[in-house]
């Protein structure tokens, strides 16, 4: 569809219309726009897209036209109050500057001055090469996705390469670090959550399988009051995170638990 419109550029249609009225060739449903913005890796990527879409030559970009289209995207994004990275605005300023320099009549003395587009073109080319290189890299066969190391079990009565020994303190130090980094310590609710509840959550999920399970079967009186509380908290936590659901046919009938399907 886009290709068809490129053959008959719908530019005249857009001119003069108030900004914010998305032109047809640019129309993207608002929901999709965030996705769309995320699809671009930055202003150079967006510019390259605009250029390629119209089969233009990077070496000879019609600056005025590209600037106009670029600005339409920017305005559209602003209109929808999408957070726009500063880089996009910087590029808009640069395009505007190049355009104005091209429009100004040049005194003969400055005839051999460099084309104001040159720097932009160089950057676009450089970025395009990297974009291709990234695609080529992604296409290389790689471990995990396309290849696996072949290995066989070690000989009888020989352990595999000895598994690394780990000191619990090392694990705790690692946790401290990651929590500090994520600033998880500031979340109040985590402090109070007893780990036994987490453990019980795993156990409940594990024994649920695909069947119904009677609610009371999770409670083991021999664990005492504390055990019952832990189980209840675990069930509530699982309910809250929508991993299980409770069912009861009629009031006072047995309550059943099952995994959310």
């Amino acid at each position, binding site marked *: 569809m886009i290709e068809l419109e490129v053959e008959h550029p719908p530019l005249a249609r857009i001119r003069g219309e108030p900004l914010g009225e998305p032109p047809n060739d640019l129309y993207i449903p608002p929901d999709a726009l965030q996705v769309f913005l995320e699809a671009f890796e930055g202003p150079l990527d967006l510019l390259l897209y605009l250029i390629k879409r119209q089969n233009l030559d990077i070496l000879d970009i019609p600056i005025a036209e590209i600037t106009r289209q670029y600005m339409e995207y920017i305005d559209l994004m602003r209109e929808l109050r999408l957070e726009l990275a500063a880089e996009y605005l910087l590029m808009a300023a640069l395009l505007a500057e190049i355009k104005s320099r091209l429009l100004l009549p040049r005194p003969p003395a400055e005839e051999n001055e460099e084309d104001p587009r040159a720097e932009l073109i160089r950057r676009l080319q450089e970025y395009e090469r990297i974009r291709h290189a990234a695609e080529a890299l992604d296409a290389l066969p790689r471990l995990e996705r396309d290849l696996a190391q072949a290995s066989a*079990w070690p000989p009888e009565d020989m352990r595999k390469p000895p598994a690394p020994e780990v000191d619990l303190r090392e*694990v705790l130090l690692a946790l401290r670090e990651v929590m500090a980094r994520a600033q998880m*310590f500031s979340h109040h609710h985590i402090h109070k959550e007893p780990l036994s509840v987490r453990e019980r959550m*795993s156990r409940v999920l594990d024994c649920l399988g695909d069947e119904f399970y009677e609610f009371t079967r999770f409670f083991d009186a021999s664990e005492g009051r504390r055990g019952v509380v832990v189980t209840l908290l675990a069930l509530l936590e699982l309910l809250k995170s929508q991993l299980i659901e409770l069912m009861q046919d009629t009031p006072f009938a047995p309550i059943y638990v099952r995994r959310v*399907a």
Partner: protein
Amino acid sequence: MDEQRLKLILEAALLAAAEPLSLERMQKLFAGEEEVPDRHALRKVLAALASECDVRAYELKEVASGFRFQIRQSLAPWVNRLWEERPQRYSRAILETLALIAYRQPVTRGEIEDIRGVSVSSNIIKTLIEREWIRVVGHREVPGRPALYATTKAFLDYFNLKSLDELPSLIELKDHAVNEDEPE
């Protein structure tokens, strides 16, 4: 599927798995294909693979949990020298992932990535599963049905814990630096 192709696929799976494969698990390799080989067909191909190994450094073994390729006993003296050099260590990434699974279980890989701010490679998960310190206890019912991981009994045993409760709470971790000189 012709036998030659089937043989290649089984050989590949056995060499990639690094653990014994049961016949059921081998059948799952063909999930979604028109023709899933039956146990009889699998056994026939495994027999062919086994006899081809006669000239190789490994043999096909059937153990309780399935089949695996195993290096011949006679080659043990040389293979042993492979591990002599370096005592292995786990990376910080593995330890952090393990700690997060212990404290936030049941938890998905995506949730671990959110907290760590770094993507977690499948190898890390595989290493911890192979060590039998974590396992899949379910799936979160969101698009992609990501696996939920939890720690195992073996994890508690290794670290000599009766239950997860014996791990310090996060607040304790924060307030008291982990004491390096703590007696064992």
